[in-house]
């Protein structure tokens, strides 16, 4: 039988848990966590790559490419960039895009697909913008004209 003291303790514990669950963008959470962890990142990357590889504006550089392998690497890359528990094991952006002659229109086309995928996955705007800001410097190594 619950005593009054125990009753108060268990209610407090419940309240604290509820508060933590409802707290928006708790200061200590990493971008990885705020994006939704691996599950969401995998979903977003898969969605982005699928659309980029079929969109006539952006699909050229994905011709004959094994998409599953690319997705794995991009998930690693984003996970690490967002302070998640991953280590990117792929090539640098310069090396992996060498010879592909990526144009600005193609790059921005893919960025748009990524934005849409993040929205579709229900990622909060602040986390989405933070991720895009972290990815932006890669343009220099990816776009050659």
């Amino acid at each position, binding site marked *: 039988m619950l005593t009054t003291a125990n009753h108060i303790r268990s209610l407090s514990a419940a309240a604290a848990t509820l508060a933590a669950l409802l707290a928006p963008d708790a200061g200590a959470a990493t971008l990885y966590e705020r994006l939704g962890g691996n599950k969401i990142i995998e979903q977003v990357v898969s969605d982005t790559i699928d659309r980029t590889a079929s969109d006539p504006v952006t699909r050229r550089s994905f*011709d*004959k*490419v*094994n998409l599953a*392998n690319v997705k794995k690497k991009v998930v690693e890359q984003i996970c690490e960039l967002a302070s998640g528990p991953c280590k990117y094991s792929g090539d640098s952006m310069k090396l*992996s895009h*060498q*010879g592909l002659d990526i144009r600005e229109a193609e790059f921005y086309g893919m960025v748009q697909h990524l934005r849409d995928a993040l929205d579709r996955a229900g990622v909060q705007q602040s986390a989405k913008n933070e991720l895009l800001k972290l990815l932006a410097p890669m343009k220099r190594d990816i776009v050659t004209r």
Partner: protein
Amino acid sequence: MNNQNRLAFALWLACSTLPPAAHAAQLTAQVVDPAGQAVANAVVHATLLSGTAPARPRKEISVEQINKEFVPLVSVAQTGTLVNFPNRDQIRHHVYSFSPAKTFEIKLYSGVPAKPVLFDKPGEVVLGCNIHDTMLAYVLIVDTPFFSKTDKQGKAALDTLPAGEYEVQVWYPGSGSTPAPQKIRLGAADSRDLKFVFALRPQSGRPAAGK
């Protein structure tokens, strides 16, 4: 010595320094399907059953990457051969194999020569690219120095063979049923024509385009 003797001596000298025709046997193989149509890209290899085959220096071979394809589709080399993978494309490739005869992977960047890979075990090595999954090639490694690949007419020629008893086999990429090997005996300067018939027309070995 008078002139006649000199001439005789010179002739004798010339003849005695001619090597005996010890490695002058040859065989040609015609490989066909059940309808008699030529089978190209089949490897014909002959193993000397009596005694040991003379050691031949291993010549390096290359499997190039051109337009997101491996060229040639089929290669054959003797155990202990170095295989090069020159990337002729502007983009990178990442060749790999899980075959027991040679499991390896190398990143191949455009314009960056990579070290050749030593294929030191006999067997079939299937090559792929981690980036472009339609890329496919085969390297057959054999213990014998006597081998050749059939051309578009389904013909392969093996020459400079030493006299002896041979088992001649046919290999085809990814093929489950190959023609039965043939045992032959070759004299020092013999020339033999063999025919190998597949029970079923073998598939081309190249995967269908697209994914």
